[in-house]
């Protein structure tokens, strides 16, 4: 934006922070409804969220692509069932362009601070690109965006090359190097098979073993893609089949015996088939109930850790001294490179320290006992603030895009209602927010997230609450949280549907 022209979007009805799946999804729906008074603030220089940030070798989705896309913008062109990250990023960039979002996007516009004004009942967002003012603030900031480094003594003094999986250094050649990978989560198990091909020696630091099920990936043939283009219903039917199949997997998360046993069998028979050595198999066998942490899909991780140049260290990285990385078992490894694949800040969101509601109180302060929001979208003391893909939305068994779309529907209805009621301020009471959170805690208490015997990124370690998770069927989120009921915003607890 040339600084000489005044920015027409300095003052809008809706400010959206973040241009990932959530922010773009909302932006597309607003555009399709003919709305023009909105701006999307993005701290990076392109759209795409996680799919822009994660460029590590082997990056791909672990939700089938016909489902991991907008229902209102199905894509006949996916190359395979689990599309590579680049394709997903391209999908989002194309969507932003074709849906006319470019004029609404402001890049390099990191939300430094967002503040509610008690006097004019509006939000002001301060960014390096100047200030933006809006009636409604939408935090579409995600929860798998801010990287988390492990607290390991000496890590910052490592003399080799060190980077996080979501900040991959493509300029550093890895061929023939001695590489350490820290973590065995969703990113690590995609990275390890790639690095095993090129590293002289690869050490994988495993704090706890993940459950891994067969990936069942496959190419879509040209004939299939052509059919998808000619008959959109075919794509939709595949999407529906995948959605309802995935949703049925929630029975295992709710610890229903038969379905839990089936999920365990799918993972452990895969392990047994791929890893003949009983000792290694024992090392790779998780010590908690399946579903407590994210269940991973891979056909090439187990083969990779059995390669002669790969060492699976069944202990976490404990300290680093010079070029030596020591595991908790005391063993040291000389390394040229450390790839940190330890995930993201999930329970204590950095964005919450930048949002200030009534009386100048920060969202982080409001959430000091764990993040929560009425309907996973609205918080007490933060008028006209809506959260997308924030607390109470994460799923272990289905597509988060579905959750985002349900939230967008709630938000659009809320905006309509505001327009019809003279732009009234929408704010929930603490009672409503707490009642909703209590209900989710009760439901979560009957699921593997709480009862599975693990520590996962779904849990807030400060209080043991599953603040990030939606502890139920995905479809129930739409049934209960997509409808907008103004009574809830007036403090009527009967409006609670959960």
């Amino acid at each position: 934006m040339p600084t000489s022209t005044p920015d027409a979007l300095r003052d809008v009805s809706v400010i959206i922070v973040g241009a990932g799946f959530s922010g773009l999804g909302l932006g597309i729906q607003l555009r399709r409804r003919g709305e023009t008074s909105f701006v999307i603030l993005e701290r990076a220089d392109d759209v795409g969220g996680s799919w822009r940030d994660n460029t590590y070798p082997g990056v791909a989705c672990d939700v089938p692509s016909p489902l991991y896309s907008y229902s209102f913008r199905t894509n006949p062109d996916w190359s395979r069932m689990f599309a590579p990250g680049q394709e997903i990023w391209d999908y989002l960039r194309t969507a932003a362009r074709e849906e006319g979002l470019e004029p609404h996007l402001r890049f390099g516009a990191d939300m430094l601070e967002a503040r509610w004004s008690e006097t004019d009942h509006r939000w002001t967002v301060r960014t390096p690109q100047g200030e933006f003012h809006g009636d409604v603030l939408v935090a579409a900031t995600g929860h798998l965006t801010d990287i988390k480094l492990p607290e390991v003594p000496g890590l910052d003094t490592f003399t080799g090359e060190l980077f996080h999986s979501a900040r991959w250094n493509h300029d550093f050649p890895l061929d023939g190097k001695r590489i350490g990978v820290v973590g065995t989560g969703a990113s690590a198990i995609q990275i390890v098979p790639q690095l095993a091909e090129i590293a002289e020696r690869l050490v994988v630091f495993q704090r706890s073993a993940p459950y891994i099920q067969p990936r069942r990936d496959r190419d879509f043939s040209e004939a299939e893609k052509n059919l998808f283009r000619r008959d959109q219903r075919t794509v939709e039917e595949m999407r529906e089949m995948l959605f309802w199949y995935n949703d049925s997997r929630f029975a295992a998360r709710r610890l229903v015996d038969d379905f839990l046993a089936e999920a365990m069998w799918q993972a452990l028979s895969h392990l047994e088939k791929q890893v003949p050595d009983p000792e290694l198999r024992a090392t790779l066998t998780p010590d908690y109930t399946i579903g407590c942490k994210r269940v991973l899909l891979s056909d090439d991780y187990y083969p990779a850790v059995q390669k002669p140049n790969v060492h699976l260290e069944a202990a976490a990285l404990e300290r680093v001294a010079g070029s030596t990385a020591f595991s908790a078992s005391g063993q040291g490894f000389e390394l040229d490179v450390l790839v940190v694949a330890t995930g993201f800040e999930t329970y204590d969101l950095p964005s919450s320290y930048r949002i200030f509601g009534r009386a100048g109180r920060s969202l982080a302060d409001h959430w000091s006992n764990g993040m929560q929001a009425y309907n996973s979208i609205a918080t007490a003391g933060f008028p006209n603030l809506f959260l997308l893909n924030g607390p109470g939305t994460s799923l272990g068994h289905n597509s988060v895009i579905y959750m985002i779309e349900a939230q967008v529907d709630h938000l659009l209805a809320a905006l309509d209602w505001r327009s019809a009621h003279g732009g009234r301020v929408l704010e929930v009471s603490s009672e409503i927010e707490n009642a909703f959170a209590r209900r989710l805690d009760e439901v979560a208490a009957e699921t593997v997230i709480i009862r599975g015997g693990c520590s996962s990124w779904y849990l807030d370690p400060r209080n043991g609450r599953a603040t990030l998770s939606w502890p139920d069927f995905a479809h129930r989120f739409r049934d209960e949280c997509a409808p907008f009921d103004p009574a809830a915003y007036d403090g009527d607890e009967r409006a609670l549907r959960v």
Partner: protein
Amino acid sequence: MSTANTLAATAGGVSENHGSLHIGDLEVNFFDSVEERGDFPPIVLVHGTGGSTRSHFSFLFPMLAARQRVVAVDLATPQGPPEEGTARMAEQVQAVIEKVLPARPVTLAGYSLGAVVAATAAGARPDLVGGLVLMAGWLKTDAQQRLRNDVWHALRQSDAAALRRYQAFCAFSAPLLAMLSEGEIEALVASFRTDDVMAAQMEINRHVDLTEIAPKITCPTLIVAGTDDLMTPFRQSKRLFGAIADARYTEITSGHAMVVERPAELVHLIAAFNADPNEYPAGATLPARRP
């Protein structure tokens, strides 16, 4: 019944109580999730031909019980004229409701033959049933169904292995079967068992006729049809839609075995209907679900 003692003692925080009652010389078993959750009416489940609570509702029972009380009846197969079979079975359902859930409206949800039984109970005793869900049901056995029934009986006499393959072929949708590996197909085929009880139920199936009963059903009713159902084709569900006054209709992309192919979608439909039976008016076709 082989099911009574094998159902898991706890499932997803739901503990089930098993009980039974006697009607004449028939013993009728039932399961009760006991705990009342929320303000919704209890749901009573009735299984289909050759099935049981365990084989047809291993998903629906615990997952519905997460939000409301659920009772499921294991039907006992009556002797006597097959024309009277569904009425005798409906009496079992009525007796369980009167014993376990007296003096309160329930939502009665039947699948396949269970749908016919549930509709019969709702027509006979409107005082017991506040809402009705008919999954893969039918109004009156037609020539297509009798033809299938003929083949079933003929194979039962001549070729047990072929009968199992035929049952798998008829029960599941073509798209689902097409996706399975050879090993998965064989496992599916092997899971089908037939016995004299099932043969007796197949004879009852031959003689179903709800044309007199359907007009007596007055409660809100949800009719769920499988688009790819060979055993009770969706047009049969549409006939129920026409025959029951306060009915609404929806299809799911599934074969007859919808309790296995699309159980989560059924939980959605039943739970939403139970929470608000009149969300859609009589005569409505539910909007397509496009997740």
